[in-house]
C-alpha cells in the first residue's frame, strides 16, 4: 500500500487555512492513485508528529503544501516527522529545486519519500497562469502572437496584459523571494503575458506600487500564497489600493492609477495545485499511473500543462 500525505501549515485562528489541503487531497483521492491520502498540519490535527502512525501503508509520499523551501520544509517538517537522517543537503537545492529524498521515520516502520514543496515545482508556473485565466475569464492575454516578438506585444492595441506574482518577501526566509522570481522568470520566458514582474509585501519592488511597474493597461495580480487569509484578503488588496477597507470588498477588476487590476487571491486555492502535489509524488517515484492526466483534466490544467 502507498499513501500520500499533504502537509500544510494550518491555523489555530483561521478555519480557512486548511481548506486548500483538504480540497487538493480530495481531488487526488478521486484519482485513486493512492491507497490512503491524508492531510496533516503544523497547527491543526493530525499533527506532523502523529500523522504517519495513522496510516496503514508502508510507502508514504510526503508533499509539503508550502510555497518556498526553508524553515518549514528543511527544519520543522522533517524534525516533526522524525526523519532522523534528514539533511537539507540531500535536496541539493539552491532554494528552488528541491526534489525528494527517501528516509525512515523514527516512530513507524515505513519508508518516507520526502518531497520538495509544491511552491518550487516547475508546474507551479502553470498554476499561476491558470489562476490568471480563472480570474480574468480569458484563455489568452493580449493580441500579440506568442512567438516571442516582444515589440509586437508592446504595441498590442488592447493595452496589453501584465502579470504580477506577489510574494511575502524576505522577512523570514530568503528563499521566499527566490521562489517568486523563479516563477516570474519562467512565465516571462513563456511569453504568455506582455510583462511579468515579481513584487513583494515587505521588500522592493513593493506590491503597494504595483501599477508603477507595468505599462500594460491590465494587470493580473497573483499572490503566491497557499491559503487565503490575513495577507491575501486584507493586506494586499488594501496595499494595492483596491479598497480602503477590505471588509467592504473590491471589484475584480478594479481601476487603480489608470490600470485595471485583476486580483486573484491565493494561488494555492487553484484546483490545479492538486496536479503539482501529484507530480511531486510522481517525481519521487510514486506509481501514479494516469492520475496526473486525470487530475489535470479535472482541474482545468490540461491545456496549461500541454505547453511544457
Amino acid at each position, binding site marked *: 500500500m502507498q499513501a500520500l500525505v499533504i502537509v500544510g501549515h494550518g*491555523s489555530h485562528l483561521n*478555519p480557512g487555512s486548511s481548506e486548500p489541503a483538504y480540497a487538493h487531497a480530495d481531488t487526488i483521492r478521486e484519482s485513486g492513485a493512492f491507497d490512503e491520502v491524508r492531510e496533516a498540519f503544523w497547527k491543526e490535527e493530525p499533527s506532523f508528529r502523529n500523522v504517519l502512525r495513522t496510516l496503514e501503508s508502508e510507502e508514504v509520499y510526503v508533499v509539503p503544501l508550502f510555497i518556498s523551501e526553508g524553515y518549514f520544509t528543511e527544519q520543522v517538517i522533517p524534525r516533526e516527522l522524525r526523519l532522523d537522517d534528514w539533511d537539507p543537503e540531500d535536496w541539493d537545492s539552491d532554494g528552488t529545486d528541491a526534489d525528494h529524498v527517501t528516509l525512515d521515520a523514527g516512530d513507524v516502520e515505513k519508508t518516507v519519500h520526502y518531497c520538495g514543496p509544491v511552491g518550487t515545482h516547475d508546474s507551479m508556473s502553470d498554476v499561476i497562469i491558470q489562476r490568471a485565466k480563472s480570474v480574468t475569464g480569458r484563455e489568452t492575454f493580449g493580441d500579440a502572437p506568442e512567438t516571442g516578438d516582444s515589440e509586437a506585444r508592446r504595441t498590442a492595441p488592447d493595452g496589453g496584459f501584465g502579470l504580477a506574482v506577489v510574494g511575502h518577501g524576505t522577512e523570514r526566509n530568503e528563499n521566499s523571494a527566490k521562489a517568486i522570481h523563479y516563477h516570474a522568470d519562467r512565465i516571462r520566458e513563456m511569453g504568455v503575458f506582455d510583462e511579468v514582474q515579481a513584487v513583494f509585501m515587505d521588500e522592493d519592488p513593493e506590491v503597494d506600487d504595483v501599477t508603477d511597474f507595468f505599462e500594460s493597461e491590465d494587470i493580473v495580480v497573483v499572490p503566491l500564497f497557499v491559503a487565503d487569509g490575513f495577507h491575501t484578503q486584507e493586506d494586499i488588496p488594501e496595499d494595492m489600493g483596491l479598497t480602503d477597507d477590505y471588509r467592504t470588498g473590491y471589484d475584480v477588476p478594479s481601476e487603480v492609477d489608470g490600470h485595471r487590476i485583476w486580483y486573484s487571491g491565493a494561488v494555492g486555492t487553484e484546483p490545479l495545485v492538486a496536479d503539482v502535489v501529484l507530480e511531486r509524488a510522481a517525481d519521487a517515484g510514486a506509481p501514479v499511473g494516469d492520475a496526473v492526466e486525470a487530475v489535470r483534466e479535472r482541474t482545468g490544467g490540461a491545456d496549461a500543462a500541454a505547453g511544457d
Partner: protein
Amino acid sequence: MSVADALVDAADDGVDFDGLTVEPYRDAYRFATPDDEAILAGEELRERADSPYATNWYYWEHEVEGHGTARRAFLRWLEGGSDLGVPERYDALRDGHTRHWGELAVTVVLDAEGRRRYEVRHEDDLGEDVRKTTESSSAAHQNAERSEDVDAYTDPLEARELVKHDDDGRYRPLSTAPSLPHGWAFVDLDGSDLVETVEYIYPATVANWHREREGDLDVDHWEDAAGRQTGIYGVVSELDDDALEWAAEACCVDSQCLKRREWDRNGEEDLDVPRGDGEFPCREPCSLFVAAARKFTTLEREESREYTFELTPAEKEQVEDIVDAVADGRTDEIREADVYEGANRYRARFLRAKRMDEHGLSGTPTYPEDHEDDGDDDH
C-alpha cells in the same frame, strides 16, 4: 467470496478464531464451537456457513483483516472485545451496541447476513431520529417545523467540515475540545469508513490508543517537546515548574480537552494536575499548548508589583466572578438582565464606569513610573 466458500477454502489450513475451530480430520473436517462439535464432509461444512461463529470469523478475517492494525483493534473494542462469546455478542449487536469515544457514540449493528454496520454521532444525539440529508435540503423539509432530528451522512470526508465549528459557529482549533457540534449522524458505514470518520473527528486518537494498549505509546514529556522547539517557540523551555502546572491546568483538564494527558514535565516528575479520564491518551504537548505556553512564558518574565486601589468587598468578588466566568466559558450563559451575576454585562459596565479611567482599575496606572510627572492635579 461467500462465507461457505471461504470456510471450505480455509478448512485445510485450519481455522481457530473467537471459539470457532475448523481443522482437517481424517477425510473430513472437525467443526467445533463452545456449543457444538461435529465431523463434517466438505459439503456439510458449507451448511454451517450461517453459524454465528462462521459469519463472525468471516467478518473479521475476510472483511476487516488488518491484523495488528489500530483499525482492527478499534473495531474489536467497539464490540466489547473478546470477553463475550459469539452468540452473546451477536445478541447484543442485533439491538445495536454503543460505545463512547470522547463525545462520540459509536453504535455497531449486526445485519441479517452477520455483517456489521456502524453509526457515529454526538453522544447527546443518541436516540434522535436520523433525517436523510437529501430530504433535509428539499424545499418541503425546509418548510417543515424545525425538529430535533439529526442529518444523515455517509461520506467520512464530510466529517472534516462538520466538526470544524462548534454549535455557536466558533472555529474549533482543537479537535478534542469538548465542544463537538450536534445534529449529524454518520450512518450505514462499514468498518473502514467508521474508523476514517472517527479519524477525521478526533485525528490520531485511535492510533495512539492502540499504541498505548500494545504497551508502546511513545510519550514525549514537556522538556523533550519544549527542547525541540525552534523559531518563535524556542522560548517555551523557560516556562518554570509552577507555570507549567498552571498551563496544564488551564489547557489540558477534561473540561478543555478530552485526551488523557500522559506527558509530564519529564519522565521522573509528574505534574499534579489531573490527567483526565479520557479513553484516548495525549502523548505530547500539542501545538495549541505550545503556542499558549509561548505566551505564558513571555508573560511570566514580568515581576509581580504591588498596586494599591480600592474595591468594595462585593466588587472584589465581582472581579473574581468575571475571571471565573471567562475561564469557565460561561459568559454566553449569563442572561442580559441577571444583575445578580457578577459577570453580568450591566454589572461589569457599572464597575467599569465607577472604578476605571484612562489609567485603568481604580485610577492606578499599570506603569506608575511612566506617569511620575502627572502630579496630583491629574484628572
